[in-house]
């Protein structure tokens, strides 16, 4: 039972990691916690669903179009909502993301209705791989692989590409970055677009693992937030470590202590980490100089 609980925890942790990754990308660039991340992912997943169900678009093309949509959605949000904010504080921007979250939730309910749907996915959620007697569904396995690959690509992107470095510079000091010739506004739009796309990947995998409905990302979003806090809000590897740890801790707690309080573990972790090590396990403590 212990081994299976850990394997299942790793699998669910990979989903938390993916969504946490999307949150961290934005946080790294703008210090903003995006509470609309889950609903942006949900809307993108509905787009994939509609393309496949209503227009019979093959899966791979549906994914490509969904990524394009997600990129446009992220950039649209940044351009139309966040950029228009007058003398925005970080708190003000976070509140705007909350408002956008509610708009998207209402829109999804109006457009697609409240019924649960099943997202067609080429990898089975029921067929399993067997590792020394421990089972993991194929989709769980590929979720772990995808989250690790995405994390690695983003790590390289932030570390070695000009745009990636510009994004980090924008986060550290927007004015200095602008003085150095970085088009910070463009960078911000780009960040939101990339984050939205990563969120769309998470959304499609989470829907394929369970069901597709408007509130499907509420629980994963809170858990991914806890993962990001655990691993470190500015650390990409931290999201993977945080997600995996949270998934395993939750499962072990549910398996051996209490299932009734399993869902509370994530919130207890947020509180504990913020008290003990606010920067998270893998991020350096960063103090903004004024």
């Amino acid at each position, binding site marked *: *039972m212990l081994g299976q*609980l850990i394997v299942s925890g790793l699998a669910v942790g990979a989903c938390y990691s993916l969504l946490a990754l999307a949150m961290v990308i934005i946080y790294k660039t703008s210090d903003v916690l995006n509470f609309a991340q889950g609903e942006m992912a949900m809307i993108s997943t509905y787009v994939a669903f509609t393309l496949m169900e209503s227009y019979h678009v093959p899966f791979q093309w549906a994914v490509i179009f969904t990524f394009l949509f997600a990129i446009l959605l992220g950039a649209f949000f940044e351009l139309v909502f966040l950029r228009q904010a007058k003398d925005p504080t970080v708190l003000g921007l976070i509140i705007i993301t909350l408002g956008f979250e509610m708009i998207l939730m209402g829109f999804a309910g109006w457009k697609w209705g409240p019924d649960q749907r099943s997202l067609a996915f080429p990898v089975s*959620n*029921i067929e399993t791989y067997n590792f020394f007697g421990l089972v*993991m569904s194929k989709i769980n396995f590929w979720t772990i692989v995808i989250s690790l690959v995405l994390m690695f690509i983003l790590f390289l992107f932030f570390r070695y590409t000009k745009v990636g470095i510009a994004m980090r510079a924008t986060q550290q000091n927007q004015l200095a970055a602008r003085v150095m010739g970085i088009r910070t506004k463009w960078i911000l739009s780009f960040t939101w677009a990339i984050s939205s796309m990563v969120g769309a990947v998470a959304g499609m995998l989470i829907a394929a693992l*369970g*069901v597709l409905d408007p509130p499907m990302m509420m629980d994963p979003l809170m858990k991914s937030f806890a993962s990001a806090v655990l691993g470190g809000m500015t650390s990409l590897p931290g999201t993977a470590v945080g997600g995996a740890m949270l998934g395993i801790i939750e*499962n072990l707690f*549910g398996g051996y202590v209490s*299932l009734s309080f399993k869902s509370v573990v994530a919130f207890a972790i947020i509180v504990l980490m913020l008290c003990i090590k606010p920067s998270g396990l893998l991020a350096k403590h960063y103090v903004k100089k004024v």
Partner: protein
Amino acid sequence: MVKRNLGLICLLTLAAFLMTAPVSAQQVRGVTDTEILIGQTGPQTGPAAAWGAVARGSGLFFKGINDEGGIHGRKIKYFLRDDGYQPAKTKAIGTEFVEQIGIFGVVGCVGVGPGMSVRDYYTENKVLMVSFGCSGVTNWIQPFNRYIFPVYQLYVDEAKALTRYFYENMKLTKVAVFYQNDDYGKQGLEGVERYEKEKGLKVVAAVSAEVTDRDLSSHALKLKNSGAEAVVLWAMPTHGALLLAECAKIGYKPQWGTSSTLSDGPLMMQITKGLWAGMINSFPIEPPDSNNPLMVKYRAWHQKYEPNERWGTFYYSGCLYAEPLAEGLRRAGRNLTPETFIKAMETIRDWRGAIGAPITFTPTDHQGTRDTRFAQVQPDGSMKILTDWIRITK
């Protein structure tokens, strides 16, 4: 002379006012010469929005009734409000219903929590509550409340009867329960426990989940490790789908059974990718493609007024929950007051609409239905009726 005439006019005006005043005082809230005002709250947004189809289904029913000329010359004016399944919102809407709109009664109003938030307020204001809560908890009949007319089978009795079916018809003695951690889920658990206790047995595992939980892997493992041959599932559709998938992953295939709240076979088959086949559930209403003349009529209304709505169990049960209200209004006649309506409702004995199970209300007992039947989900999503009507509530 002028002064005397003026005094006379004043006196006559006052007399006329005093004569008309009692008439307006007698006017019944929510009832006019041409209309009866009926309200319903239901989640149109949020996590429980799938159940909001019930309220829209009742809207369809009233459209059809109005098109047929209404009841005793009065049309139903229907007010649907979205409470998002949040009791605080339901309470605010309840105040609006009574103090601003002035409704005669409510029908349906999905949800135990939302319903409990307004039950006493509606009672104080003599608001009739028909098919209230759309749920089989005992909160609507205990303590006895003459303004509430629930029609849903009691969950406790439904779960007990399901366990008996497993035990007596399928010889499955090791039964586990997966339940939602609220009144709805707990009353399912209680029903199973009652039967097991009668037989001197014990529930082999009782596993609960919060409404928002989306990872049920450890729940599935616990059920598997319990060695249960059958699992009674008292949860919402999303949890049903997630749990069956997790159990399939780890190779656990018990006989599943569930409540009538998860009786939308086509929907469940679709979201579980076929895993729902074989599920046994209480099925106290007519199937969606029933040839029952009332169901045929409701489907025609559906095509005429709301063809874009999915003809699912939740949606058409909105019609069925409104049926007893219409029957009560018919029996009450043109002189409609809360008292005449209650008296009329209490004459209903073994009455059948398309709701399926016979309905009875008496002056001392308002639990409308006492029977159910069991059905099994077929691979195409249709329901195979397994039993005749069974009396589950004494």
